């Protein structure tokens, strides 16, 4: 369980990091918090010839309040986002979701750029980015480009990132004031990767009806799933238990789960429906009241 020999370069700027990646022609790997990469190196599932450490890049460590969105630098630690009051106000789904990522000790080191680039289908952050239509900002030798979350996540641990590009920031649209958020995750033990997790952000209208809902699922496809049909079904409706149940069935319908040692595809689909219903009920606690009325 020791990494194979490799070279190590501490990047002095984003341009320097990109240059080293370009020179190594696909054999270089970016090192951020190391919480996924160092175990992969130790198990020798990953054997790059050179690591490019972004750890010294203060320029990627910021949270900025922009009009309409919040920009989070790639090297911001998950724990920093989780306890940021700016994020709690502007994007309340993020801290609630990040609390499910591993343990505090993991979140102290793991970065938002690392989790995004790693693209584990069971990871929380990619699903939140998908739910909120966030953009991923990346930089390569020919400059920067912005990729929507829908296009960024392409498959199991696979993204739209070229081998000589790095993630520099996430742009996450602000939620409307009063947006209700909830996360329901099923894992074997606290801190384990999700078997399935459902994420919801719901805006209510003036008379308590659902103005707009955003729902995504982790662990139920090779990429985070956006439950568009469920969102359409909910828009404009009163949050009655029947409506939430119907929407939860649509959420499960949007998934294309897989079999693995943690559960079968069929099982994942079933628990997606249950978790989606609980998630919507948690976001919309008025559901019981309107059913009693």
């Amino acid at each position, binding site marked *: 369980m020791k990494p194979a020999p490799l070279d190590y370069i501490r990047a002095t700027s984003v341009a320097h990091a990109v240059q080293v990646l370009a020179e190594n022609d696909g054999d270089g790997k970016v090192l951020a918090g190391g919480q996924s990469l160092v175990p992969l190196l130790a198990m020798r599932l990953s054997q790059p010839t050179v690591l490019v450490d972004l750890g010294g890049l203060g320029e990627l460590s910021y949270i900025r309040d922009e009009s309409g969105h919040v920009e989070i630098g790639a090297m911001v630690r998950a724990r920093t986002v989780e306890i940021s009051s700016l994020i709690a106000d502007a994007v309340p789904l993020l801290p609630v979701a990040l609390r499910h990522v591993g343990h505090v*000790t993991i979140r102290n080191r793991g970065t938002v750029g690392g989790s995004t680039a790693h693209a584990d289908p069971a990871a929380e952050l990619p699903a939140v980015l998908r739910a909120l239509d966030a953009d991923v900002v990346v930089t390569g030798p020919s400059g920067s480009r912005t990729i929507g979350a829908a296009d960024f996540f392409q498959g199991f641990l696979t993204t739209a990132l070229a081998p000589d590009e790095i993630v520099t920031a996430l742009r996450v649209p602000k939620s409307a004031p009063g947006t209700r958020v909830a996360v329901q995750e099923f894992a074997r033990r606290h801190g384990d990767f999700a078997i399935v997790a459902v994420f919801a952000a719901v805006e209510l209208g003036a008379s308590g009806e659902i103005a707009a809902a955003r729902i995504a699922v982790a662990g139920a496809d090779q990429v985070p799933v956006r439950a568009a049909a469920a969102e359409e079904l909910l828009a404009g409706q009163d949050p009655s238990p029947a409506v939430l149940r119907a929407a939860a069935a649509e959420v499960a319908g949007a998934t294309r789960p897989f079999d693995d040692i943690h559960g079968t595809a069929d099982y994942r689909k079933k628990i997606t429906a249950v978790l989606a219903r609980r998630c919507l009920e948690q976001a919309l606690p008025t559901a019981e009241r309107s059913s009693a009325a």
Partner: protein
Amino acid sequence: MTSLDVTMTVNGRTVTGRVEARRTLADFLRKDCAATGVHLGCEHGVCGACTVVLDGCTARSCCTLAVQADGAEVMTVEGLADGTDLHPLQEAFWARHGLQCGFCTPGILLTMRELLADNPDPSEEEIRESLSGNICRCTGYQFIVEAVKDAAAVLRASSADRG
């Protein structure tokens, strides 16, 4: 294959070493700094035995390369006691039988120290949630939870004394 010079503070002492890039912080602390209280169980981030404090926050030293800690301040379990005076957490683990073989203990002590700094009066559920990243094969956790509750009370009383 590169070797690099690293300098860091380990339990208040400045240490310098030349390490291969692939050397984990855990191996650097154990083999080059004789901090053998850093225990290695799984070497891939799941057992918590290798937990240290890196620049003020807990970190898995098996998931951190020594070169990433260049210039950092590191504390291991060896830095927890003040000379022969045990830290209140260590006292409570001793009094409450919060350890048997002791393999998990260094990581658990440092993780619980961070919990109590953030949350001086945690509920049992919060203690258990915070312990979830540290595997203990001996105690069944019950005595660990009781020890943490005791230590929390001692630490609250001593910070109230200091006013």
